[in-house]
């Protein structure tokens, strides 16, 4: 007589090894940093909204934002925001290319990763260099 098959509950299913088990590879780093920079940028939009709302509120309310933006912590936030932005953009371009079926091999990811890290760091430093030079 066949016994009714009892389904395995979610907790009994085998789990794939988590992040800390794997040796870091370029694929993994790009994927994780893409998501982390996306989340950081989402938090960073709060500062942009703060700037716009404060500016719309008039000269006095803008002073509050202005004071934060020129403080060392504000500058650090802005620097981090531009860095995350350029990384997310470069990495996003790679995703757009991969969507067309190109550059999906591991050697291509290794090369693309180096380009992404170098270009995004260069864009960040270049932007801040220009800002400090022209203003």
């Amino acid at each position, binding site marked *: 007589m066949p016994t009714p*098959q009892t389904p395995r509950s979610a907790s009994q299913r085998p789990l794939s090894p988590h992040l800390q088990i794997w040796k870091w590879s370029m694929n993994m780093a790009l994927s994780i940093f893409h998501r982390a920079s996306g989340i950081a940028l989402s938090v960073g939009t709060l500062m942009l909204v703060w*700037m716009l709302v404060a*500016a719309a509120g008039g000269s006095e309310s803008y002073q509050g934002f202005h004071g934060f933006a020129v403080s060392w912590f504000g500058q650090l936030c802005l620097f981090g925001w531009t860095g995350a932005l350029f990384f997310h953009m470069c990495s996003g371009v790679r995703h757009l290319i991969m969507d067309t079926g190109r550059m999906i091999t591991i050697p291509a990811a290794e090369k693309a990763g180096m380009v992404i890290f170098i270009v995004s760091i260069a864009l960040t430093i270049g932007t801040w260099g220009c800002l400090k030079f022209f203003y």
Partner: protein
Amino acid sequence: MAQKWEATPFKGDMARARGLGSTHAGVHHWMHQKLTALANIPLVLWAVWSVMSLAAVGADYASVQGFFAQPTHAILMLLFLASVFYHMALGLQVVIEDYVHCEKTKPFFLMGMKLGCAALFVAAAYSVLKLSMAVVVVPAIVVAQP
């Protein structure tokens, strides 16, 4: 998390799978994420320079007003905000779907995130419109009567 139906041995595999799979919304989500990603490239490059040349260098209030008084700047900023906040909501949706495993609270995280994105967008867009359409009041010069 264990589902209610997992405790009942009377359902077949098909009955268990039904209703839990794709809702055929994946392509729509993917396509919109890619479209906003493409739109973001030029908009973000413009916005990052504009915002940084105001915020990061500590520009005074008059130059912020002057910047948004230009219709081109206000329009580009509104396009940037629309594209970025929509892209952000799509991205955060995937993050929540990946990490929130409680089926009861997940919809509330998703709804809260989307409402939050909408609120931030409206606040930012309203501020840009207000700045761009504001009538700048120049203090009257007091001329001494002879």
